[in-house]
Every structure is written in structure tokens, then in C-alpha cells.
């Protein structure tokens, strides 16, 4: 089990932590005998249901952190809107990046838990046709075929007609923005969530696979004659409204995982069989590791050399988003989570349960987790130390960059096999949870 000091070197939860983060060694994770007085207490799964309760505890802590950092982002954004300057814009951007740290770790709860999967689109849908929200440079804008709302520009439009439907957009409210998601039936019409806010802070990335992120000037939020890009007041209003919605959405999700509340999702989860709980945990880990992270978020972008398919395409923060997605997978497996205030949560885990079944195999499985973390760390190092970001690594003909991404993908594929193996060791043959009619 990790001690506080080793966790400190494993990474603080501010954004730059990924630079410093190392992998917790296999032995540290599985060793139950090397604790010091300062280390968190060790929990061994006396009862399998404790593992699922602890999983819910980690979900709660992760969503609480996402809420805390979203509120900090709102404070920084209010400052930007009230006093637009390059400094206040930079602080708002830093707050956005910090908010992504816990949220990306929370995505492992999305698959397997319908309450999260039904909810998350409003917060993290991507890729988006940003011309729905604000001005774009048309020569650098490729949008979904057949999307009638791709050039709607809500910020400049007090009313809008899409697919024959006339909409009054005068008063930008959280509900209105939420209703504009998937406008005209297109999933690329994303009006809310982290990526909408990202676009409002950074603007379009016009650099393709060359260096550089979006470069929206702070004056896009200025009032009066200093305003650039037009409609600055409405842009500011949009930003703060989108953040209000983000905060209320995160408040809802924290409620779903609270132990004190009856009839919430947590109580449903804990009332299910242990097998079903394990299945949800494992399905979340495997689906994020393979289909979503290795596939949709990395392989598509790499094989197509497509910056349109880059996850954080406006801010070029993709390396961190991928790193923390993977850390979330590890959190669930090891039952450990470091909160944004530095506190560490530990408890009964699948990793310990697997080790009780087969110590040797458990070590091999954790080695695969370590390797994926190292491989994703290399993407972080490339960006933060060498200044070569994910959208540059996927450029056509860049063998070195491409191979770095390929290695990360391969490590996630291996990690997924390890998750399947762990499932087998604890007797979970069927990985797809029975979630009524919900299709993940």
C-alpha cells in the first residue's frame, strides 16, 4: 500500500503533477506489511461487498473534487468576465485544466453505471462542431456532414431556425443551453460542458498538427469598443451560464453517490449482488481502457492524423486528459484515490482480492497497469517537457511521434487483457453488466 510520502511523489493533483508522477510499484500496491504510522490504514477485503462500497466512496470523492474544481473555474471565469486581461484569461484556463484532473478520473464510473452514462453527455460530449456556439474561421472548420446547426453561432444569434424549428435564444439560461445539445438530432451539436467552456476560453486551434493551441484573445470578453470577435457581453454570459449548468450537474452526481441519502444510485448499487457490482467496476475499467481511450480517443486520431478527433482539441490538454482517464482506471482497481486537497483514500480493492486468489498473477496484472501509466506519462512528458503535444504526435509521417502514441495504445490493450484476467480470477465470467435496456 502506498504511503503518503510515496503518493506525494506520485503526483500532486494540480495539473503539472503529471510531470512528476511516477508509477506506484506493484509491490507498493499489493504489499500490506510495509505500512508506517503515517501511512493510510490498510483494508483487506474481509467482505466482497466492502469493495463495492469503497468503489462508491471513491466515486463520491472524485465527483466532489470535480465539483470543487468546477466552482474554482467559475470564480476564475467571473474574474475574466469582470476584468478581461491576458492574465485573467490565463488563470481561467489554468482553472479549466485543474478541473479536468478529477473529472477525467471520474470517467471510469461512466461505463457500467447508467446514472453516469445518461448524464455525462451534457458535461463531456465531444467532438463538437464549435460553430454552433461562436464564430469560427471557416477555412479551418470541418463539421459533421448533415449537421444543420454546425454554423448556428448561438452567441451572435438571438433567434435560430434549425431543421424548420424556430428557437428564441435571447435569454441564455442553463436550461436553454442544455436543450440546445444535439440540436436537430446531431450529436456534434454540443452547447454545454467542459469542451464548450474550453472552446470559449481558447477558441479554435488553427494550427492543425503544427505547434500551438487555440489562441482566443482576452478582448473577446471585453466590453464596449475593446470587444473583439463581436457579442462580447453575450459570450461572457454564455461562459458563466455554461459553468452554472456544469456545477449543478456535478452537484446532482455527488448526491447520487452520497451514503447518507436514501434511494439514490449508491443505494441501488449496494443492494445489487456482489457479482453485479464487480461487473460494473470491471466493465467501466475495460470499456474506458480499450473502446474509449485506446480506440475513440487515441487510435482514431492517430490513424486518421485527425486533430478533429483530438479530445481536448482547443486547449491541447489531451495528454493530461488521457493520463487522468487511465489513472481513474487504476484508482478503481487499487481502491486508492488522491483528492485535490492531497488527502488519500484507500480501502478494500479488486487488486487485493485478485492477489488473495493468485499472488503471482496479481503481480503480473499490476505490472500491466504500471506499464500503461508509464506509457501515458511519456505523452505528458512529450507535451510538458519537450513541447510536443498530442496533436503534433499524430501528424502523418511523424514516425517517432506516432510510435509514442502507438505504444500508449498497445499498453492500454494489454491492460484491458489484464482486466479480463483479473475478472476471471475473481469468478466474473460475464463482463457486460445487466443494466436493463441501457446500452453503453
Amino acid at each position: 500500500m502506498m504511503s503518503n510520502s510515496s503518493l506525494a511523489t506520485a503526483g500532486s493533483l494540480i495539473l503539472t503533477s503529471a510531470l512528476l508522477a511516477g508509477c506506484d510499484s506493484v509491490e507498493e500496491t499489493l504489499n500490506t506489511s510495509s505500512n508506517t504510522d503515517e501511512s493510510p490504514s490498510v483494508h483487506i477485503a474481509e467482505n466482497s461487498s466492502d469493495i463495492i462500497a469503497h468503489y462508491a466512496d471513491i466515486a463520491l470523492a472524485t465527483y466532489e473534487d470535480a465539483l470543487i474544481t468546477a466552482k474554482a473555474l467559475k470564480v476564475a471565469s467571473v474574474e475574466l468576465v469582470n476584468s478581461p486581461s491576458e492574465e485573467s484569461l490565463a488563470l481561467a484556463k489554468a482553472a479549466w485544466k485543474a478541473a479536468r484532473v478529477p473529472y477525467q478520473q471520474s470517467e471510469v464510473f461512466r461505463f457500467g453505471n447508467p446514472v453516469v452514462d445518461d448524464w455525462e453527455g451534457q458535461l463531456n460530449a465531444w467532438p463538437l462542431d464549435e460553430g454552433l456556439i461562436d464564430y469560427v474561421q471557416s477555412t479551418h472548420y470541418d463539421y459533421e456532414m448533415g449537421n444543420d446547426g454546425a454554423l448556428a453561432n448561438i452567441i451572435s444569434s438571438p433567434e435560430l431556425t434549425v431543421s424548420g424549428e424556430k428557437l428564441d435564444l435571447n435569454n441564455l439560461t442553463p436550461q436553454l443551453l442544455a436543450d440546445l445539445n444535439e440540436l436537430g438530432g446531431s450529436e456534434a451539436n454540443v452547447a454545454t460542458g467542459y469542451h464548450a467552456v474550453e472552446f470559449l476560453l481558447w477558441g479554435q486551434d488553427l494550427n492543425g498538427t503544427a505547434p500551438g493551441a487555440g489562441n482566443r484573445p482576452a478582448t473577446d470578453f471585453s466590453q464596449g469598443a475593446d470587444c473583439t470577435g463581436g457579442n462580447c457581453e453575450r459570450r461572457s454570459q454564455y461562459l458563466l451560464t455554461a459553468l452554472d449548468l456544469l456545477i449543478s450537474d456535478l452537484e446532482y452526481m455527488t448526491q447520487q453517490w452520497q451514503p447518507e441519502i436514501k434511494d439514490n444510485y449508491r443505494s441501488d448499487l449496494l443492494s445489487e449482488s456482489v457479482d453485479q457490482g464487480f461487473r460494473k467496476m470491471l466493465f467501466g475499467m475495460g470499456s474506458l481502457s480499450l473502446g474509449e481511450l485506446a480506440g475513440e480517443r487515441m487510435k482514431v486520431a492517430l490513424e486518421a492524423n485527425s486533430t478533429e478527433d483530438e479530445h481536448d482539441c482547443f486547449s491541447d490538454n489531451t495528454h493530461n486528459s488521457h493520463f487522468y482517464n487511465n489513472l481513474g482506471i487504476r484508482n478503481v482497481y487499487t481502491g486508492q484515490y488522491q483528492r485535490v486537497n492531497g488527502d488519500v483514500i484507500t480501502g478494500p480493492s479488486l487488486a487485493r482480492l485478485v492477489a488473495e486468489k493468485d499472488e503471482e498473477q496479481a503481480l503480473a496484472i499490476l505490472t500491466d497497469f504500471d506499464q500503461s501509466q508509464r506509457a501515458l506519462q511519456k505523452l505528458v512528458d512529450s507535451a510538458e517537457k519537450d513541447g510536443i503535444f498530442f496533436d503534433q504526435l499524430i501528424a502523418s509521417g511523424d514516425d517517432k511521434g506516432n510510435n509514442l502514441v502507438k505504444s500508449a495504445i498497445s499498453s492500454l490493450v494489454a491492460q484491458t487483457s489484464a482486466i479480463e484476467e483479473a475478472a476471471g480470477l475473481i469468478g466474473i465470467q460475464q463482463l457486460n453488466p445487466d443494466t436493463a435496456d441501457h446500452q453503453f
Partner: protein
Amino acid sequence: MKMYLKLIILSLSLTGCDQFFPEQLDLSRSPMTVLLEDQIHPRYTSLVSEASSLRNLASEFCLNPDNKNFGLLQQQWRTTMLSWQSAEAVSQLMLEENMEGWRFQFWPDKKNLTGRKVEERLKSKAPIPLLSDSVILQGLSASEYLLFDTKANNALALKKTEYCQFLIENTEALFANSMELQQNWEKSGSYYIKLMAMERGKNALGLNGWVLNSLDAQTSRLKKELALPLGKNRTNLFMAESWRSRQSLENIRTVLAAFDALVALAIEQSASQEQAAVWQNIVLELDNLSLSMQNLPYDFTTAIKQGRADELRSLKEQINSLSTQIVRTASKLEIPLGFNSSDGD
């Protein structure tokens, strides 16, 4: 094939004869060898053959670009795509690890990356070798753009040499990639070696495991193929597979035919009457799907124009139902279903 499956199930319930299957089995071959020799190898032989014909026709057309040759070329593209669909359906498990399928078909392509990448390459003064370039440019999706998109069609009709040059490069790359996959399945090939090593290991899939996991992975894809163009509140035909060549539904038919063949093989190779009977619900689902597909046209666009969106939605539900039966059958046979690349989309 459907009648054949039905007869097997029927004979099980009527005869109760334990000797039914052994009489039909070639005991000199293991079930996995039968899978390789009877299902996988023939499909890759066909793919290579069709890709070779496509390559030859592309060269002929570019030497003599007339309408007749163009029609033949379009038809050959359709056949090659169906051949790929069939090969992929029985071997997806091995292709999935490196997402090899994208070298043949890039879908979904929401933002027309295929068209844009082809046009970008055509403008390049010194393009890198195609096999080193994006996989999007190497496969059937790029040649579909050249052969069926109006803009590219016009360019080919105007005998623009760069379009023809790229068509030749693309079809050559497709042939080379098809050959590579075929060789991977030969006795010294990487897939064959990997499969055999897996079968000797403690996590051996076995024939039932292969069939069920293949069905599971491909069914996830079929769900997506139906869900994306049907959308939530409207249809978007650009999201259909092979929308340019308008054979999206024919692709699905081909995949379902491959499912039939895999299930028939699993039943034939079953160790007992009881084990064979476990497949009955999947057979019934496939049968229903076959009936539903029977009168549908080749593609989504025509089906929508004919006002048959409800039939397509019903097809989607039937695919969901098949998916449920795959999971239940796996559970009965105690076969683990692994993660697949469509999980989490």
C-alpha cells in the same frame, strides 16, 4: 443456410440422437482447424481475389477511361467490399487488437475525413508512399470516394491523371494489405501462430468462445451501424456505412450470413446434443433477422425514401435482441465474453 440451421435444431428436438453430430464431423480435424480451413481461409482467398480484380480493373480503366469500364470498376468495388465484410466478420477478434479493419474501411466518418484526406493527398507535390500514409487512404473507403462521390467521379470522367494515379495506388495498397492478412492466417503467419498459442494456453477460447466473441464484437458494430444513421430525432444518411456506394444494408446482410456460417459450424462441432441445443435461441434470432432483411433494399437511403424507417428501427431492436441471446448463450456455455473495441462508444 438458414434452412440448414433450422434442420439441425429440428433434428435435435425430434431424434434426440447423440450420434447425429459425430456422423457429420471430420474427426481428423480439430474444431479450430475446421474454423480456419472452412471459414477463415476461404474468405481471405476471396478477398485477395476480389482485391486483385479491383486492382486490375482500376489499371484498365485508367488506360481506357470509358463508361463501361467505370461501371465494371464500381461493381467490382461493391463485390470487394462485401468480401471484406465477410472476412472481417469471422476474424474480427484477431483484427481488433491493432484495429486492422481501418486499413480496409474507415467508418464512421462523420466529418468526411476520407474525402478531405484524399483531396489533400492529391494536392501534395511529394506524397509519402501510400502504405506509410494514413490508413484511411489505403482502404475501400478512399476508393469508394473516388468511384462514387460526385466530385471525384467528375474528376475521373475528366481524365484527371492525379485521380487515376491515386486510384491505382489505392487499389494496389488494398491488394497488398489483403495479401498480408491472408498470409497472417497461413501456418507460419502471425495470426495462426497467435491463435494456436492461445488455444494451447490456459485462456483458450475454443471454437464456441471464438464464435460467441466474434458475434458479440460484430453485433456491437451492427448496433452502431443502425443507430448512427437513424439518429435520435432524425435520420442522417451520411452516417450510414458505405453511404456513397449505397450498399449499407447489403453489408449488414453479408455480416449476418457470416454469423449463420459461424453458428452452423459451432452446432456441427458441438460435443453433445445438449450443447448444440444451447444455440437454438441465437439461430431463431438470426432467422428473424434474415426474414426482416429479405425485402429491404440495398441501402439506407432507398429504405428511407421508401418510407421504411420503422422497419430499420425494428431491425435495430432485433440486433439488440440477438445481442442479448449471445450474452445468455455465453453464460450457459460458461464462455467469457471479453471487451471489444465498440464498448464505451
